[in-house]
């Protein structure tokens, strides 16, 4: 199963990422960019982790908000340290890159194409788009809590 950043975040915060992997056969996939291949690489999950860390830094010690944020950071850290086979980072091939570009493009033609797929919003963000492009092309199950992303995937 390929999961998007939002699902990965939610599962990580709950500490359920390993259980989710087990439930789907032992391995989860994410698109490159949602998670980095190298530790020094920017990624959506890394940005979410940094945002949660800001919550920790900005919350009074011992408060409920602080405890919640610390637990969330811990969950994200565990997620970021996972390796194959629990989590695999999939790189898009050329066709998938081109689909990603169309799903995120500002061009009128591409927007019409997206409308034809049933999308209401102006476009998808790049992380969501590359996840859908890979999952769709390779026939992988896709999990997202973004309604527009699911419309595009099932179109």
């Amino acid at each position, binding site marked *: 199963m390929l999961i998007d950043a939002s699902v990965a975040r939610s599962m990580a915060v709950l500490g359920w990422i390993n259980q989710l992997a087990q439930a789907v056969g032992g391995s989860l996939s994410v698109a*490159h960019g949602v998670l980095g291949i190298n530790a*020094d690489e920017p990624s959506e999950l890394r940005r979410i982790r940094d945002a949660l860390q800001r919550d920790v830094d900005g919350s009074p010690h011992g408060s409920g908000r602080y405890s919640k944020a610390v637990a969330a950071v811990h969950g994200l850290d565990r997620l970021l340290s996972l390796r194959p086979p629990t989590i695999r980072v999939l790189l898009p091939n050329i066709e998938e890159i081109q689909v*990603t570009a169309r799903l995120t493009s*500002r061009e009128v033609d591409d927007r019409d194409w997206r409308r034809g797929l049933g999308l209401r919003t*102006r476009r998808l963000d790049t992380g969501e788009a*590359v996840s859908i492009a890979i999952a769709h092309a390779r026939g992988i199950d896709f999990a997202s809590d*973004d309604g527009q992303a699911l419309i595009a995937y099932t179109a």
Partner: protein
Amino acid sequence: MVWPERQEWVVPMYTTLDQQLNDLLQTSIESLDISDEEYRLAVSRYEAVGQFLADYWDSPRAGGEVYPQGSMRLGTVTRIIHRNDEIDIDLVARHDIDKKLISQVDLKADVGHALDLFLKSGPEGDPSKKEGKRCWTLVYSGFHVDVLPALPNEDDPETGIIITDKELHAEPDKAVRRWIPSNPIGYADWFHRVMRREWLEKRAELSARGIDVAEVPEWAVKTTLQRAVQALKRHRDLYFEDALDDRPASVIITTLAGRAYGGGGSLYEVLLDVTSTMPTLIERQDGVYVVANPVQKKENFADRWQSHPHRAKRFFEWIEQARADLSNLGSERGVDRVLEKLGRAFGGRVAERAGRAAGARLRERRAGGRLSMASGTGALVTGNGSLVRPHTFHGDPGPGQTNDLADALRRARERTGLSQEAAADALGINRVVLSYYETGRRSAPLPTAAALARLYGTTLDRLVAGNEAVSAEVDVSGVLYRAAPPVLNDAARGGLRIFEQYLSDYVELAHEMSRPLPGKGQSPFAAVTGSSARDGADAARQLRRYLNLGGGPLGDPFRAADEHVLIWRLPLGEDLSGAPSGLFYNHPQVGFSILVNSNMTLGRQVFTVAHELAHAFFHSRGLDVIVSMPGAELGRERFADAFAGELLVPGDELRRLVAEHALWTTLTDPTAVVHLQRHFGVSYATIRVRLLQERLIDRVTFDKLAQVSPSRLAQALGFPVHRADMGDFHMHPLERFPGRMLALVQAAVEEEIITPGDAAETLSTSTHEIRQLLARPPIQPQEQHIQLDLEAAVFAHKGGQDGDS
């Protein structure tokens, strides 16, 4: 209106040039391995020796054990180039008797005698024997077996041993006392612990491919650390071919590489990392170089560098050469060029084998018609797509094999005139990583490629299509560059590009939401021609009346004129000799916009906002761009400074406070001044200047007040100190934006015009912050305006000056 056809599962052969390089490197180093047949032969040979010695020592009083150590045990066996690709196998022959019962000379002789008997027994392979410094060597065809006589170490009973040293034999008394402690089993355990995680992962990968790992021998699974050690040993052998005695010992290389190994990455990355880190791990204790045995700290693997200091020097020269050779490898493109450099670093035969292997794989895929080129990464993949043109010479990259997305990223950046450093800083990524993306050594994650495209004024789809032309309707950066002084540095140019991107996003979002844009801003005030302080102060009072701001503190200066001016805060660089503190731009679609350099103290940012408001409301007739660089002495700038002072600290209010609270005599007290500063929400410098301008203090007091550190004093008084005032310019990502932009994004997500992910991308932040934005009103600046508490003004501190100016 349909998706592209579903395609077969695509298995990348090379997804990036980095992987291509890594594959060639990996194949080269694998060719240093001994074959399975050689391995089994070597094992049978040393087992024969071991069995013979075990029988020789078999007595009721003492037994013994023979086991492999060194590279055989570590899995780092490498063919020895100066011995015609032979290999060495190291064995420990441990005789289990008390050291009091035998001398070093006798132990060595005893093992030598046993080996003589072994040779007379007519063993397979017909070996001969020779003596080494600490061991006996059995010379077979194709490999040597070094047998190291040893006794158990009673101080380290689990796995420790003590060994002999021929140099000590000449001094029998010392030889009795000074056995050399060693622990090859403990060392190998340490080495395996270092790489255990990767080793388990590799086994798991085999298992995932349906291979029964129980059937795979341990030695057949090699980690990148083991490969890196093999590579370094081979590089060393070549480097020291003409000075074999100076070669650093394999155990030094293995120890330093093991300590430097970070636990993951490709072989190429691990080698680069390890060769950079290794020299830093060599300690210097009392002038002696120390490479400690990680399981026996007293043992210094580099002890011989003390008597041969030039070996230490040569080690550092060699590791630097290895690092340079590897770096050069990464700068090459094209299989043949990489192979050529591999040949120089690791030997021609090694490169030849890698070339043959790579060529065979390419031919195999071409024959299957499944080879295509990933134009996004410039690498070869198997799967659907346009076929790579056939060619006959393996390793020829062919004219069509370019790294399109990588090249497009580089070209787009160069077109904007930004350096790699400025682009990387603007996006908060590592410059080296960006260079990897631009050279194709790593695939750029598409969200990062999209962010870079935006920074360069284009879009991902245009980059993918090979058309990285500017897509913005208004060339903001061009306008600003032309208006800015020529000293504008790289960081400032990066910040200006981001400013352009956000303005463009604002316009697009407003269109999406069908919100009318005001067009070019029109000031309600007549343009001023005067430049005196009085003119500036008068203008500030006019604006206060116009905006109904009253006579008190401004509150949040970044929001005070939100309805009329969009105020953005972006990093433009800390070096204000090459970066503006702020600028005013009358955008043709969104109107008055102010950009404040966030790499300044908060007080200075507040002053800059007020200063730029003067330009917006009083200088915008006829001037669309005004860039404020420190040190500018134009009359317009003097006017704006006076305006800012009066707007932030109205003279009437300041005098009223001083009079009401009888502060005439205490204004020499920095504590009272800090309270006034906090009341108005300005910098300490601003309040000092305003007190002087309003003649509430004299020049002597003004100078005396400069003697304190306002940040420290404020902290001592219990006031919060903003992180920017402590030199930390990191901001909450949403603090960059004017309230109107945040409100627009909020509404767009709520009305499902954009997705939360799109919102996050637009605001260069994460979906986590978008969730927070949706759950509450737009974020407020963190600086709190503490109510004036003049009664509590007790002078508490006199420190040094700080940078709050």
